[in-house]
Structure formats: C-alpha cells, structure tokens
C-alpha cells in the first residue's frame, strides 16, 4: 500500500521562493510521529527547495484583504503550503 507523507511549510511571504519560518511533518508510516517542537531547524531554507527535493505542492493559502478597522491585527501565519510525497 502506498502512503502519503505530509510536509507543511510556512513562508515569510506569499512567494514559494521565500524563507521557511515554520514547518510540520506528518508520516504515512504509523511508527513515526510528527509533533510540536520536534525539530528546531527548518527542513529547507526556502519553500522552493521542497519542490526541488521531490515534494508535490497540493495546497497553498489565499491572500486575504485586511478588514477596515483591523489593519494592525496580526494572528495566524499567513503563508501556508501543503506538500506531499507518496511512498
């Protein structure tokens, strides 16, 4: 059975070429667990390096307009990219 590995990257702007600022791994192999704080160094410096390494991008976040009166508000990380490898 082929299984899906997941890589989630958060980048510093909306371009896939930009710097990785956050990351998470999930494994199709149930013996491996991805979890908070499991690695202090990013798997790639920039988002595009995941593509170079054979990851397939299957989702990225949309750009959303800032709402009136809420221009200063910051919250969730904005530039989220989901990748997969089928093994």
């Amino acid at each position, binding site marked *: 059975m082929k299984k899906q590995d997941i890589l*989630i990257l*958060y*980048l*510093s*702007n909306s371009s896939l070429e*930009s710097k*990785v*600022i*956050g*990351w*998470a*791994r999930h494994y199709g192999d149930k013996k491996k*667990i*991805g*979890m*908070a*704080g*499991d*690695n*202090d160094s*990013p798997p790639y410096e920039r988002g595009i390096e995941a593509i170079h390494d054979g990851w397939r991008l299957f989702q990225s976040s949309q750009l959303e307009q800032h709402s009136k009166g809420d221009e*200063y*508000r*910051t*919250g*969730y*990380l*904005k*530039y989220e990219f989901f990748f997969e490898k089928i093994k």
Partner: protein
Amino acid sequence: MKKRKKNNFLLTDNQMAEFVSKGYLIFENIIDNKTNKKFLSEIGNTSTSLNKKNADQTWLAEHYNEIMKSSKIPLVKAGTPLKKAYKKNSALNDVINNPVLSGAIKSLVGDRPKLDHHFLHITFPSKYYHDANQKISQGNHNDCVIDPREKTFDIQLFYFPTAVEKNMGGTRYIPGSHFRMVNELAIARYHNIRGQKHVVCPAGTVIIFHHNIWHGAGINNSKKIRYGFKIRLMPTQKQVKLWTKKTYKNNHDEEALYWNKGIEKNSIKEILQKTEPWFEADSGRLDILNRIRLWRHITNDKNFDAAYWLTRIENDYN
C-alpha cells in the same frame, strides 16, 4: 547584585521594552535553594500513585486530585488579591515577595494584582505512561480564548523549583508571539517555528510571560519529574508608568528607516524594532507597530515612535 533601596527593584526601561518586544522576562536562579526545597516539600510526595498507571490515563487525574488534597498549595478563589493568596512563611509567599520579582510584578501589573488562577504542572517522564502514544508533546497554543484586549495584559509567572535540563522537555515558547491574536490550540498545526525556544534553566528560575505568548510543553525524556508552578495575575489598574515616574518625551529627532548612521545599541527603539526569525515580511512589520503602540500606552507618551513606523501612517489630513 547592587544594593538598592527598598521597593526599588522595579524594572528598568530596557527590561520593560524587552517585555513589550519579546513577551517575556527571564529571572534565572532568582529563588534560593532553601525556598525551592521548601516548595517541593510543601507540594508533598508527587510519586505515590504512579504505580496505578493505566491505559485510560485516569491515574493522572487521580494523582492531581491527591496532590490538591495533600499539598500545602492553597485552593485560592479566582480574583483573590495576590497579597492575600499565600500564607506567611509559605514558599510561594517567599517567591512572590522576592524583591526582584515583586518589583517586576509591580512594574508590569501594578501593586494590587488579582490572582486569576495558579496551577502546579507536573510532567512525568515518558516511561511512566502506559503506551508509546503518550509520548507526544503539547501543541503550540496560547493560554486564552481570543482575547480582544488591546492594551491591558495579564502576566503568568512560571516558577521552576528544580533545574530543567534539556531532555526534560521544558516549555517551548515563541519569542515575540504575544501580539498575535489566535484562539488557543488553533495554532497546534504549527509544530515548529523558526526561533522557538525551550526552557532550560537552573533551579529557582522564574519566567514572566505575557498571557498571550505562544507555547507548549515538551516531552520529558529524563528520569526526573519536571515541575512548573504557574501563577496568572491580572491588573486592577491601567498599566501606565507603573515602573517609573519619568516623563517620556519624544525628541522628534527620529532616525530614518534603514539609511541612517545606525540605531543606538540597546536603546528602546532598537529593542522595539528587533525582528524575530519567524516574522513574516509583512506581518512582522505590524508586530513592530504593535510594540510601538503598546510602548506609547505604558509610557503615556502618545507621540513616541521608532523610525516613523506609526507617524508615517498617521499623517492623514482628512
């Protein structure tokens, strides 16, 4: 430490700016060993029920129940003034009355804060758990629901009565995340964030966190139990100039962005503009704006700015 007059252990301007910028202050080894030992003896024997461990984890709740009954840590009603929360001669009373810490508390939330809640976090070595699935760290979160307060903030004291070694899974936290308005574990998807830190400290360390800082507990891979005692305090007054009587006046001699002779090292303006490794290019600028806004509030200096970050967008002639 230099001898200072009583009540003169208030934070410095730079420490306040650090707190505004990063969302925490660390006081390493501030509590003496005698008090640390006293605290550990007051919480009682925390390993008595560990042999009851079972797959559905009920032992953990039972264990906490036992400790709540047997320990000397009081059940304090929410909203109790901090001054009335702990018995004289108790270790926790010694902790909050440590001159440096009480100065820091006063500087941040005033001299009559209320206790929101307190809690003894006990993180057992992973070998105590029934199966390997329990070896999962706590996801990143903040300790609130969506908190819409813009100026007022609570603080959380984290007191570590024993040393926290690297393999003990000390609290992971994200410096500078305290302005990010999110809802608790909604951010658990963010497993790792560039610049994340993990508490590793000597016994008797206290970290004061802004209530909104992103954090999560790590896995304890050591053989020792890890203890962290949390005290959440809320102010009962405006958090304006609680640490100083100085009149802050911006001299309007503002360094321009980037093309300048360099911002003075360790100046308030430098501290407030220091970006975190995880800041996005755009939202990171908003984080700087939010720091400047909070600094304006706590200093009551409405014209304060750094490199025109706010002045630039306030120049509206409508």
